[in-house]
């Protein structure tokens, strides 16, 4: 029972790049026992994916296994022949990846793709392959498997595609499944369903699994043991409970601390030395709100942002295949209607100095709403009032010249995409000041940019760099600096930390809270992650299908949600075990 089916010993993998050779994985050792689920936890650049690609021997051509032993059930994977590897892949060891739709052949029916794998490994012939494929689809709980056999990947949702990928992986009853970030990119509720399915199937068949993830909550809920990787090395390993309750290595401690759980406070995400005065007040205060003790009483009863019956309709052309640019507003292919209501009679208000969260899964319309508030997109109907002025009636293309433009700013989701690749950081931050500000000389402009860089904690020498020379966290700071350059009153934060590592996320969230204190702004924080919203926001609104389903004080909504949808959302979030406060 305790036998090891996979043993990795001192594995080192190297890549040849333009700048010379880079060691992606260094002296990594771990083992997987029969029937156990091992978690491989790490942030980007930790080498976790490279390890699994190496043992499957499907590395890119410029990757090489320099040294180490890879033994699977007595078979030496490093020295096995190509023919032996064909046999092992899919039949003994299977792998599933992130981005499920891209993992399937776009021009081949999914049923046929299943048949290919079955026939390849001799588990079916051309007579019974179809039936076996349909049975497999049923095992992964795809409805109407006979009809879905003939579907193409682009006709299925992300969750369904991942089920198909799982079916392909499990088709030949392998003994080891490697899951490389299998739920990244899926909604939180779908994520739970998919992982539960995988866990059920592997337990049923006595399979071992390696779950590679950056999400500690996932690792805590689905793994028996785990190893933690940093920069290509294993820094700690052990059984899951021990790892979370008694971490040894400073990196592990940092990761655990930075992952928000049910009761963490914003300032607890960082080590005590880095905590700022603004957020440290929160210790001992209510479980929910991150009240700013300097928060002033609202200047007047008028809200800062008032939205009434906001609606946005898109005309549907009779086609299902859409270009990615339309998809950026988070829509999935829908049934044909005359028009599609992305936002439906939405009303809300944000007060001065308040921080409001807007939570919803993809396709709920939150991005469209924020685009309309920002006046990047015109609404179909509805009233938008900002600081007492009607801004909804100004068409989007003229709003750039409005005097209110500088007071409404946004921090975008993807730090890479939101910076002009040909502008240095300084130029990106200066742009709004040059266009809308009133500074006269270059010197005062530079001084202002330097001051902003200080505010966001960006070292000054990084200002002359281009985006491709900056890390994710640094790019995020540049985006924030640009957004606050003109002292806006309302800042919309559109999933600002979604694409960042969890340790960087902790830093950025604390930074955002500090800035809110110092510069007296209001926030509209858009996210799919209720945990993160809870840390920063006084009030939260839950959105679904273009409507606000529920709203209220964050604490109340998280503890006693009124709607079942909200309850589902809350329950679907995987949490690491509660920590003793440090």
């Amino acid at each position: 029972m305790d036998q090891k089916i996979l043993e990795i010993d001192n594995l080192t993998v190297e890549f040849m790049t333009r700048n010379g050779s880079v060691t992606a994985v260094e002296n990594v050792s771990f083992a997987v026992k029969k029937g156990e689920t091992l978690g491989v936890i790490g942030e980007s650049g930790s080498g976790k994916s490279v390890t699994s690609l190496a043992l499957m021997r499907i590395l890119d051509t410029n990757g090489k296994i320099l040294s180490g032993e890879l033994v699977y059930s007595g078979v030496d994977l490093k020295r096995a022949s190509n023919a032996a590897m064909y046999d092992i892949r899919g039949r003994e060891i299977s792998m599933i990846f992130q981005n499920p739709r891209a993992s399937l052949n776009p021009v081949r029916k999914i049923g046929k793709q299943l048949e290919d794998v079955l026939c390849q490994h001799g588990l079916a012939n051309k007579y019974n392959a179809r039936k076996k494929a349909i049975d497999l689809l049923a095992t992964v709980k795809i409805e109407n498997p006979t009809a879905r056999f003939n579907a193409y990947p682009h006709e299925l949702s992300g969750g369904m595609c991942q089920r198909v990928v799982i079916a392909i992986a499990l088709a030949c009853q392998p003994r080891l499944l490697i899951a490389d970030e299998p739920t990244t990119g899926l909604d939180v509720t779908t994520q739970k369903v998919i992982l539960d399915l995988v866990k059920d199937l592997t337990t049923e068949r006595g399979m071992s699994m390696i779950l590679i993830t950056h999400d500690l909550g996932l690792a805590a809920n689905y793994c028996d043991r785990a190893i933690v990787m940093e920069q290509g090395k294993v820094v700690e390993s052990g059984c899951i409970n021990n790892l979370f309750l008694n971490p040894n290595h400073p990196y592990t401690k940092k990761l655990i601390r930075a992952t928000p759980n049910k009761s963490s406070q914003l300032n607890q995400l960082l080590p005590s030395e880095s905590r700022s005065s603004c957020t440290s007040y929160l210790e001992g205060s209510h479980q929910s709100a991150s009240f700013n003790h300097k928060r002033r009483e609202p200047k007047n009863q008028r809200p800062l942002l008032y939205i009434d019956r906001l609606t946005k309709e898109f005309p549907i052309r009779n086609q299902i295949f859409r270009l990615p640019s339309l998809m950026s507003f988070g829509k999935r292919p829908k049934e044909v209607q005359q028009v599609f209501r992305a936002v439906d009679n939405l009303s809300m208000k944000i007060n001065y100095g308040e921080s409001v969260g807007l939570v919803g899964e993809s396709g709920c319309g939150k991005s469209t709403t924020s685009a309309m508030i920002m006046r990047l997109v015109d609404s179909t109907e509805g009233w938008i009032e900002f600081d007492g002025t009607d801004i909804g009636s100004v068409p989007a293309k003229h709003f750039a010249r409005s005097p209110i433009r500088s007071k409404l700013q946004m921090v975008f989701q993807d730090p890479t995409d939101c910076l002009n690749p040909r502008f240095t950081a300084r130029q990106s931050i200066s742009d709004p000041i040059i266009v809308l500000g009133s500074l006269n000389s270059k010197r005062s402009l530079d001084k202002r940019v330097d001051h902003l860089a200080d505010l966001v904690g960006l070292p000054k020498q990084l200002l002359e760099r281009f985006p491709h020379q900056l890390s994710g966290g640094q790019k995020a700071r540049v985006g924030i600096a640009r957004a606050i350059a003109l002292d806006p009153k309302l800042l919309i934060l559109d999933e600002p930390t979604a694409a960042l590592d969890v340790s960087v996320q902790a830093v950025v969230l604390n930074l955002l809270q500090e800035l809110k204190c110092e510069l007296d702004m209001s926030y509209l924080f858009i996210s799919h992650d209720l945990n993160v919203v809870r840390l920063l926001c006084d009030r939260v609104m839950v959105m679904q299908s273009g409507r606000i389903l529920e709203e209220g004080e964050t604490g109340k909504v998280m503890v006693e949600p009124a709607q079942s949808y909200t309850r589902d959302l809350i329950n679907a979030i995987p949490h690491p075990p509660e920590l003793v406060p440090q």
Partner: protein
Amino acid sequence: MMYPQSRVGTVVRRLGQALPVLFGVILATFVLTRALPGDPAAFFAGPAADEKSIAEIRKALGLDRPLPEQFLVYLRDLSRGELGTSISTGQPVSEELIRRLPASLELTFLALLISMIIAVPLGILAAINPGKLIDHICRILTTAGVSLPTFFTGLGLVFIFYYILGWAPAPLGRLDFAYLPPPHVTGFYLIDGAFAAEWDTVYAALSQLMLPCVTLALFTLAPIARMTRASMIQVLSSDFIRTARAAGLTNYTVLIKYAFRNALLPLVTTLGMVFSFTLGANVLVEKVFAWPGIGSYAVEALVVADYAAVQGFVLSMAIIFLILNLIIDILYTFIDPRIELGN
């Protein structure tokens, strides 16, 4: 799903989209050739004519009417299949073109066939074996091939294979003087000769065809091989190939069933561009090899500013091209299932 007859709908829509393009082509051709320098009326009347007879001839030809009216007359004639009369030969242009078309088509199709048979496997092999000898050969061939002037290669081949080696016959047209063309069925000597079982004629026609075909094939080889290689490389590095490999599918399955089918898509779209170049290169090859096709007809007509002939040539080339592109577009909808449901 939504539209049961979606493919038919797509085809009909493509045809519909082709109509305004056709109209644009006709209009453009008309504008172009009305701007030709030289006065056809004066040409017809002859050097000794005086002002009055030139004016009369102009009136008879309809050249004194306002341009929009001329255009409508032109449209009416077109619908009847009349492309005007060639000034230099006095024959109706449409008859000349139809008579000469098979020569050009035979040349083009054979050349395209040869080049695809060589280029596609070459591109695939080069993509599968990056950095090896075959890859370098492919890259050199394509970069050089794209740089070769067609007329230069043609001349080079004539020099080597006719003058020096004596293997090829003299570049004087489709058939040597000693042979008569086979009875006309399609106009393609190879096919007609086979129908009539005149095998020595077929052989003679083939030997005349060889050099111009190879010249044209060399020209089209390069972009096709290049596109195949690039497309295969791109597909081979995509996620679903990694999944297929991880599932243990053999190299052959992965390459052909999975990778190549996907790589075909951009390849098919480049075929349109390749046809465009080929129809242009055709003109040059026909001049070098004295091939009696529509290309050489046009070149002769251009030099003497025979406007009806040039107009007819440009228009017919454009229509052939339009039809080819339409076929490619429709073919594409069949091989890409993502396009099936509508646009």
